[in-house]
């Protein structure tokens, strides 16, 4: 009897030790997924096993979460003049609102690990959340009388954060622009020009013969590729990249991403903020197509993402990086339709490539100057897609056409072959309100009286 009791105890202790050891190993090793309380959103799944990225080192609670959200998303929100910034809701006069919907915390609307409740843009609230504060909107906007609150953001009229292309006066100002502008134009990059201006003594074009690579590394093909690149054109010799540091010129056979960042820091910051580079930013193995949730080509499934994946070593061909590199991996409808789209058919000098829209050329402040650089965060203007309107579409298209096109999922899927079949009424409403002139009429009458 006593011995069987001892056996049970021994077994119990052994099982406890085994379980504790396994769970401990899981936490520290490759089985962290065991602790995931639910699948994460498309935005975070790549880094979901780096728990501390969001939760802090010792699961520090809500404050650490908020800090983590702001660390990755704060600058982006500030740059688009967030319509509902935290600072508006910390005012005590909004205490009652905050008690209904705590807009001081990102996780109130974007709760993670809840796949069944997760909607577009990682929102985990019901679509009609605007009603909490804007229930009386029809007092101000009679046109909104019969609208349901589930449509405020879904209909292409409003966003919670970024309304830069959707605010009323903007709709009125650009509502009359034609579908295709008279002089459509993609902004020109000015990296080379900037480099030549800042380093006039160094930015002198180099020919293949000027290569400073050691003979063991100077393969003909590699040197020829380099000689045709913007690097050679801008006076960047082989040792410019193949050296340990900017001062220690010891030859390095395979330079890492940090070397690119010596000159392309802004580009790399963008890259590491988006889906292509966020795993590197979290100190994980690089992203590769096999890890993607979007359809990808199987033959490149293990291709790791770095600068050279798209740009190619030595040649740094930006034309390849702008289309063929993308289509080398991406295999969804929108990507497959690109080469049948009107954007692809444009002549080379006016090309609208994958990168034109998804890695847009944007004004960027650096060293006190405004420069046009390529935003390498492909997510920067992707969701909600109205973020593309000002960053991309309006370079060539009118606002009305852009809003309608982006609200038409079928048109997006066939890569904009055809005209939008959807129509968003926001511009019509804004213009009608502007023209209704009731206030103008009052004002004119008043002025006439004053004048007489």
């Amino acid at each position, binding site marked *: 009897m006593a011995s069987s009791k001892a056996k049970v105890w021994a077994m119990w202790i052994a099982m406890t030790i085994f379980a504790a050891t396994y769970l401990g190993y899981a936490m520290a090793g490759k089985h962290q997924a065991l602790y995931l309380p639910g699948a994460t959103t498309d935005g975070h799944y790549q880094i979901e096993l780096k728990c501390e990225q969001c939760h802090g080192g010792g699961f520090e609670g809500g404050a650490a979460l908020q800090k983590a959200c702001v660390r990755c998303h704060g600058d982006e929100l500030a740059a688009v*003049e967030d319509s509902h*910034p*935290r600072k*508006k809701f910390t005012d*005590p006069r909004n205490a009652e609102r905050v008690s209904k919907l705590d807009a001081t915390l990102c996780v109130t609307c974007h709760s993670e690990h809840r796949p069944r409740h997760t909607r577009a843009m990682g929102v985990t609230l019901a679509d009609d959340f605007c009603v909490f504060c804007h229930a009386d909107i029809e007092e101000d906007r009679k046109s909104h009388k019969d609208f349901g609150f589930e449509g405020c953001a879904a209909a292409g009229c409003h966003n919670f954060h970024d309304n830069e292309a959707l605010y009323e006066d*903007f709709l009125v100002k650009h509502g009359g622009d034609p579908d295709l502008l008279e002089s459509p134009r993609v902004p020109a990059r000015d990296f080379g020009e900037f480099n030549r201006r800042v380093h006039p003594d160094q930015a002198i074009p180099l020919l293949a013969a000027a290569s400073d690579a050691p003979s063991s590394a100077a393969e003909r093909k590699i040197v020829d590729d380099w000689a045709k690149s913007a690097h050679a054109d801008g006076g960047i010799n082989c040792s410019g990249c193949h050296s340990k540091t900017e001062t220690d010129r010891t030859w390095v056979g395979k330079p890492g991403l940090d070397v690119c960042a010596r000159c392309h820091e802004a580009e790399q910051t963008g890259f590491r903020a988006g889906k292509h580079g966020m795993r590197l930013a979290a100190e994980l193995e690089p992203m590769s197509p096999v890890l993607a949730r979007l359809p990808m080509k199987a033959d490149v499934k293990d291709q790791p993402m770095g600068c050279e994946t798209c740009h190619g070593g030595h040649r740094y061909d930006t034309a390849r990086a702008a289309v063929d590199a993308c289509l080398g991996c991406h295999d969804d409808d929108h990507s497959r339709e690109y080469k049948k789209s009107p954007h692809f058919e444009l002549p080379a000098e006016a090309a609208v490539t994958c990168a034109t829209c998804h890695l847009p050329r944007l004004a960027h402040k650096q060293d006190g100057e405004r420069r046009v650089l390529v935003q390498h965060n492909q997510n920067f203007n992707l969701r909600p897609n109205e973020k593309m309107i000002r960053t991309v579409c309006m370079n060539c298209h009118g606002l009305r056409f852009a809003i309608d096109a982006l609200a038409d999922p079928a048109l997006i899927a066939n890569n904009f072959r055809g005209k939008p079949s959807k129509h968003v009424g926001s511009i019509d409403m804004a213009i009608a309100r502007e023209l209704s002139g009731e206030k*103008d009429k009052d004002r004119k009458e008043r002025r006439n009286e004053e004048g007489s």
Partner: protein
Amino acid sequence: MKNKAVLMGAVLSVGSVGAILGGCSETTAKSGGLNPQSVADSIHAVLESDRTVYTKFVVNRLVKEEKVIKASEHWKDDKALPLPAQMFRMGAEAVAEKNAGFSYSLLSLWPINKQNEPKTEAEKSGLKFIAENPGQNFYTEEELGGKKYYTAVYPDMAIAPACVECHNDHKDTPKSDFKIGDVMGGVVIRLPMS
């Protein structure tokens, strides 16, 4: 004591509140103590003076007198000067981001943006009082979100032609007959009470 230190810091400079907090308790002790009304009055004096300077010597001078630049609600898009009320609100939001220990806002019974109409009981009675009693301020206490506040409401006057014209002509204004010298709204300052 700590609360007083916070408030004193706020008085000395709205912009550099955080820097001052650390070293001001001695000053407070020597000052013989401050009541919340004098703290609020002092904060208001800074806010009002700064905005008056911006309104008269930046916006009104460059826009109306020299006519060299525009002031616009959409100042970024229009490459223009922020309107004085926007400059004031940006300051209030910057203070909110600093967790400076107090808050302020610019409200009106005739707001262009409906979010800036009075919401709490203190705001409603305060704005009504200052509109009906020109030249007087309104002081009260209120409880919001389970916390007590000392709330002061100060009249906000039309001090320059730009104020009046912009408000009267704005398509969203509920009132189109403001004149210089009118009370257009109120500045609400809230100090947390321990």
